[in-house]
């Protein structure tokens, strides 16, 4: 079954003074309606660029993006604007993503006004309903972002994204800036909204316990490429890629009984500027061998579990 969103060989390159930066390099995936695809990776791995390119907020360099069967990389501006109503984004930082001069209600109304098909009374009514949906009290109608805490600000961001009743939302680190107790409240809200409205999410985060909690499938991204893709629980039970293994072993677990062997990676992530064709993780990988100098393709190993590693059989013996 074709999903609500299908991405094929998506590429986004940036020209820099040092050379061409391959921020997103040949990424393919499909999401089914009502599901959540988690994208994890460390800073600079291209996960936010991926999210923005999928929404066509950034022009893609190459590749296709099918949203409800239509390739949005080729549609004209007018049509894209219509499609946008169905595709929204929630940003990471609720402190800088809101206009400080817009009150809560003005900020939430903005997309409704821009849509151009609602009357004033409808807008007021819809705004009230949206505030109620995301758990913002009516007394905050005329408050400004600086008066609110991070959790409430993020609720405004969610209300704005929901305003035109989209089907698909890219959530770019929506809870990373929040304290754990508030983070849990927002995660619950997002799950409830998904269940009520059959929303489809791409959930971008660096927090592995959050991504496991909220996702159906997870993609692990490293230097612009997917290195592993799998159903969420399967990925945590049987990580196959050496990078995924190191990443999972690095999570500090709030349990003093569980002392695990940590895989400490050497070195740091560099930017994929004019990258060589081989495996980009090879430089930090303790299993690197000759075969890793060749391009690695994402192959299905077991049902639904994809991996891009030339040595997985020897490693996972």
């Amino acid at each position, binding site marked *: 079954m074709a999903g609500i969103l299908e991405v094929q060989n998506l590429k986004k390159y940036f020209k820099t003074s040092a050379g061409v930066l391959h921020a997103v390099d040949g990424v393919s995936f499909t999401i089914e309606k009502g599901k959540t695809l988690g994208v994890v990776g460390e800073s600079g791995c291209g996960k936010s660029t991926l999210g923005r390119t999928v929404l066509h907020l950034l022009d893609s360099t190459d590749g296709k993006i099918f949203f409800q069967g239509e390739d949005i990389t080729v549609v004209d501006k007018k049509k894209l604007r219509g499609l946008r109503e169905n595709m929204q984004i929630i940003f990471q930082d609720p402190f800088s993503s809101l206009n400080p001069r817009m009150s809560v209600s003005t900020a939430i109304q903005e997309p409704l006004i821009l849509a151009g098909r609602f009357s004033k009374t409808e807008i007021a009514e819809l705004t009230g309903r949206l505030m109620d949906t995301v758990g913002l009290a009516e007394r905050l109608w005329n408050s400004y972002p600086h008066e609110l805490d991070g959790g409430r600000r993020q609720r405004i961001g969610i209300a704005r994204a929901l305003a035109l009743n989209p089907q698909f939302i890219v959530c770019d680190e929506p809870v990373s800036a929040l304290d*754990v*107790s508030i983070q*849990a409240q927002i*995660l619950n809200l997002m*799950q409830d909204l998904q269940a009520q409205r059959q929303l489809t999410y791409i959930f971008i985060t660096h927090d592995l316990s959050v991504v*496991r909690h909220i996702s159906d499938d997870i993609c692990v991204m490293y230097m612009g490429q997917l290195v592993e893709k799998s159903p969420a629980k399967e990925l945590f039970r049987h990580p196959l890629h050496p990078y995924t293994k190191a990443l999972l072993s*690095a999570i500090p677990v709030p349990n003093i009984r569980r002392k695990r062997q940590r895989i400490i*990676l050497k070195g740091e992530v560099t930017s994929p500027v004019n990258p060589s064709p081989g495996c980009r993780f090879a430089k930090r990988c303790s299993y690197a061998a000759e075969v890793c100098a060749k391009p690695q393709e994402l192959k299905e190993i077991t049902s639904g579990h994809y991996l891009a590693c030339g040595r997985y059989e020897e490693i996972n013996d």
Partner: protein
Amino acid sequence: MSSENKLLEIRDLAIQYVAENEVVRAVNHVNLTMNKGETLGLVGETGAGKTTIAKSIMRILPDPPAKVSAGEIYLEGKDVLKLSEKEMRRIRGKKVSMIFQDPMTALNPIYTVGEQIAEVVQLHEKVNKKKAARQAMEMLEMVGIPAARYHDYPHQFSGGMKQRVIIAIALACNPELLLADEPTTALDVTIQAQVLDMINQLKKELGTSVILITHDLGIVAEVCDRVAVVYAGEIVEAGWCEDIFDHASHPYTEGLFNSIPDIDGDVERLNPIQGLPPNPSDLPQGCKFHPRCSYVSECCRTGHVPYQEISPGHFVRCHLQHKEGK
């Protein structure tokens, strides 16, 4: 517990930020003791007062607006709050040093990293420039950076490397106590793992005591011996890691654990703490957590909540401890 072993004792510490028309009660009568060689985790959410406590030990709180309104801070038996600024300068960087959260802004961009490490050495130890530079290079090697990078500037380092440089500065004079304020929050998990690993290693090698400020209970589990949970400027629960992780007794601590998605479990829905942390300029009466607490009863709403030892070394500030079956 022998008093010789005691490194730090905070007694009844209260700190306020006094603004034009309001008083923010950031730290409210905190008591803490710490032994040599121990690692204490100070856990809590944004605005709980963790950083204020740490900064008061270093005496680097800006005054005004910060005012220590009560309490004593004994470092090896001496009350640092009574020391002169001159005496204090000899302690900072030598006996106690601090690592800040954001490695991107903590270094001076116009000096090489080597110079910045050597500066501390020269300030505190009677050595010449050359010797200080040599010591700085040794420190770089110790935190896993080649000594050849002595002459590089901060912008030439990545975030994880910068944090290592900052740790090298903090440890250059072999302090008794290291205050690490969210040292890995700005770093990626694999880099965080490297830095935590290094802190653990250095602790063993140098015997430094560490106060680790964090909001991440996972980090506490990996690095700390003891934990103090801070809420609204008070310590609501403190004890050994086993006490807190296996027998969390304060509803807030319990709520913190319930808010974290479990990496092994199958929890479909999180069970977060209701509501928001209180405004520190308008703290609730009685137990400061009571408006958010699901076990709240009449006695919680007013009066003082005693801080009691429920098992050796395990302290809780909650009325419910009197009662059976919370």
